[in-house]
């Protein structure tokens, strides 16, 4: 450095001198000098470095050192190079070691590559296999799903199986029916399989389901049977499950029928027991009283029994309707009729025994008649519930109805034949006999009960004719017989009176028109007799009888009337005086029998019509006697009254 400092001023001076001395450029030394002078040491890095390096060991600028400098530098260079060589040797060794490692690694890699290659070659097969297996697996999975679906469709789950296989006496539940219906569906659906190529499976499943179904039905049947068997209480509420059981069982007609039978039998017991209780025990604290307490009052006794049975039948029908609510089977209506018939069959005997007792005790015609109507009414009422008349209960009621009716008519006939046994003579007043009155009051009673009968109108009309003929025909006969020994007027009066009371008795009731008409005819026949009797009675008493007879029987061969015996003017005149007396008070001439007539109207009618006959008779007499052929002198004085005058006087 010091050098540099030192040399700088020299450089400056040199430069200035150079510019001052341009005249000597070709001098070698100067050139050299110039060249040296021009050397810019601070720009020569190499030189600077070299100098810097030199400055480290060339610390002493002396001759000796200057002389030795070269050697020193060379020695120093050698040392550095030796050092250099030594270090590189180390590097080389290191590199060699690295090389070795790399070499080893390469070997290893190669080996691994080989192994990998080998392994790859080996696994190729496996991969192919695996792929194949995976494909297989997928296929199988699909098949498994299909199988699963198949099973779900065509087989029962284990819970479902358990539901079907529950213990015998375990209660049947809603689930049971669900499974049962599934079994049924599977059994149906499986038929599709039979149309595919899965026939074997189809058949197997079908059989399996059939077996399951049978088992289930059997189990259900047992349960329902047991359930029904317990329904022996008077109260009988059908549980919905039982209703459902019947719905299911309808697919097995035999089981269905057996279950119904069981139900019927249980209810039959309940009804019989209820009936006997009602008959013998009555209600709480004795009210209502046991029905049998009223056995002394036949109508009430029988009525109470039948009303009880009517109500029981209605209840049983309701129970049955609840039980079979969901059954869709054809003929379920008939099933019900049959079962209700069966249920009510048990009471037939106790009922029949009791009613028979009542009937056989001969409670009298009227009661028998009322009973028969009551029985008929209940036959009708109970039949409308059962829906058929072939049920035993109805047949029993019908039988009792017929029996009571038969006994009723028997009783009537007996009464009639008793009448005929001792025919009463007509009483002096020619009125109805006591036996007639009595029989008519019986008839009245019967008809009254008939009228107030609970039996529908048409049914009432049916046996009416029989009742009437059973009573009226013997009565008419009786009257005729008892009248047979009487005179004409007495007989006719008696008959009219008797017929009249019959008529008035009948007239109060319905359905008697025919009979009334017949009685009317008979009355009229006897009326004619009475009218004639009365007319001749008047003619006799009024003195016209003889003259009228002569006029009627007169023929031309006999000559004029005036010449006939007792037909001369004076006789006729006397008669006319008598007739005039009659004309002044016609009411006084009346047959005594007419006063016995019960009906004022009839009496009036006889009087009027007989008077007409009298007028007609007078008319004939007048015509004959005023005729010139009969040679009466002065007939106007003989017969002072014209027929018109007579008519006026008498009406």
């Amino acid at each position, binding site marked *: 450095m010091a050098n540099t400092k030192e040399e700088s001023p020299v450089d400056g001076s040199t430069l200035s001198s150079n510019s001052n001395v341009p005249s000597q450029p070709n001098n070698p030394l100067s050139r050299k000098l110039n060249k040296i002078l021009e050397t810019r040491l601070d720009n020569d890095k190499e030189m600077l470095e070299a100098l810097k390096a030199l400055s480290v060991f060339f610390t002493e600028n002396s001759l000796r050192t200057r002389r030795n400098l070269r050697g020193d530098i060379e020695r120093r260079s050698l040392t550095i190079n030796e050092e250099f060589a030594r270090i590189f040797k180390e590097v080389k060794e290191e590199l060699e070691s690295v090389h070795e490692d790399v070499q080893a690694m390469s070997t290893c890699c190669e080996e691994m590559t080989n192994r990998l290659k080998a392994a790859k070659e080996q696994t190729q097969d496996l991969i192919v296999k695996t792929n194949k297996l995976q494909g297989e697996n997928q296929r199988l999975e699909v098949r498994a799903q299909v199988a699963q679906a198949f099973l779900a469709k065509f087989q029962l789950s284990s819970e479902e199986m358990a539901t079907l296989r529950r213990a015998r006496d375990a*209660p049947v539940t809603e689930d049971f029916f669900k499974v049962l219906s599934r079994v049924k569906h599977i059994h149906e659906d499986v038929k599709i399989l039979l149309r595919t190529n899965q026939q074997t499976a189809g058949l197997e499943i079908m059989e399996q389901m059939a077996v399951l179904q049978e088992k289930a039905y059997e189990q259900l049947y047992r349960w329902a049977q*047991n*359930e029904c068997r*317990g329904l*022996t*209480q*008077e*109260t009988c*509420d*059908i*549980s*919905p*499950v*039982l209703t459902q059981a019947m719905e299911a069982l309808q697919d097995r007609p035999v089981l269905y029928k057996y279950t119904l039978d069981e139900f019927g039998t*249980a209810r*039959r*017991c309940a009804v*019989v*027991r*209820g009936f006997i*209780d*009602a008959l013998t*025990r*009555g*209600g*709480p*604290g004795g*009210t*209502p009283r046991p*029905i049998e307490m009223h056995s002394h009052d036949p*109508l*009430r006794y029988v*009525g*109470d029994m*039948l*009303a*009880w049975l*009517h*109500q029981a039948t*209605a*209840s049983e029908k*309701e129970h049955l309707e*609840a039980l079979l609510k969901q059954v869709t089977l054809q003929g379920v209506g008939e099933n019900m009729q049959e079962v209700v018939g069966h249920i009510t069959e*048990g009471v037939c005997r106790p009922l029949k025994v009791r009613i028979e007792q009542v009937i056989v005790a001969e409670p009298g015609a009227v009661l028998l008649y009322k009973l028969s109507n*009551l029985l008929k*009414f209940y036959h009708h*009422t109970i039949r409308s519930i059962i829906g058929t008349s072939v049920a035993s209960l109805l047949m029993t009621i019908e039988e009792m109805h017929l029996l009571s009716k038969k006994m009723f008519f028997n009783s009537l006939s007996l009464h009639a034949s008793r009448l005929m046994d001792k025919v009463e003579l007509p009483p002096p007043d020619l009125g109805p006999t006591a036996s007639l009155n009595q029989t008519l009051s019986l008839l009245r009673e019967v008809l009254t009960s008939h*009228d*107030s*009968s*609970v039996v*529908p109108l048409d049914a009432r009309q049916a046996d009416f004719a029989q009742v009437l003929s059973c009573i009226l025909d013997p009565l008419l006969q009786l009257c005729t017989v008892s009248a047979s020994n009487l005179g004409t007027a007495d007989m006719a009066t008696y008959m009219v009176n008797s017929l009249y009371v019959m008529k008035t008795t009948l007239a109060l009731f319905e359905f008697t028109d025919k009979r009334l008409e017949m009685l009317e005819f008979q009355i009229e026949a006897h009326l004619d007799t009475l009218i004639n009797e009365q007319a001749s009675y008047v003619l006799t008493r009024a003195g016209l009888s003889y003259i009228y007879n002569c006029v009627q029987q007169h023929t031309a061969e006999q000559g004029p009337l005036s010449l006939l015996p007792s037909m001369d003017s004076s006789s006729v005149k006397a008669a006319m005086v008598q007739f005039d007396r009659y004309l002044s008070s016609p009411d006084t001439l009346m047959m005594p029998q007419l006063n016995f007539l019960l009906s004022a109207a009839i009496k009036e009618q006889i009087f009027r019509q007989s008077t007409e006959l009298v007028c007609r008779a007078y008319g004939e007499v007048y015509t004959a006697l005023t005729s010139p052929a009969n040679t009466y002198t002065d007939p106007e004085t003989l017969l002072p009254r014209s027929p018109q005058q007579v008519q006026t006087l008498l009406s």
Partner: protein
Amino acid sequence: MTAAPYNYSYIFKYIIIGDMGVGKSCLLHQFTEKKFMADCPHTIGVEFGTRIMEVHGQKVKLQIWDTAGQERFRAVTRSYYRGAAGALMVYDITRRSTYNHLSSWLTDARNLTNPNTVIILIGNKADLEAQRDVTYEEAKQFAEENGLLFLEASAKTGENVEEAFLEAAKKIYQNIQDGSLDLNAAESGVQHKPSAPQGGRLNADSQPAKEGCSC
């Protein structure tokens, strides 16, 4: 035996009585069908209907016997009083004669039913206010004097029909609860499910001998 649910716990038997034409059949029809049947045919003898209704939370089946009011059926209808738990005695508020006959109906009812039978007096045709012939007050008084429940109702409009049947049912139910109606006796007019809860001291009574069927 089974825990299966039942439809009802009790059956109450009712009878409907009263003169012909007061609307007995219409009341029954209105109650069971909720409809007014204007041209209701004459009742022949006895007809019946049922309905299940709730009484104090209990399902009760009412079995109702509708009788003919005509005199000629009287002998028949009398047999239906036995074992009735409730009686609806009906008159027509527009016809005094039907009201005047009540005492005769009441006599029948008292003689032929048991002392616990609940009788409710019903003045029907309350819709015909303009033709009213019997006042509410006098009927009410009659009912009170005779210990009867009382309502005016109309089978035509349905007014108080439900209530009439319900009031009687409530009273019957009350009789069961306080033990005055013995369910175990036959023909109490009430039948009871063995599975249903019984009221009050009824449980204490032993079951009647109803075992063993002999047929």
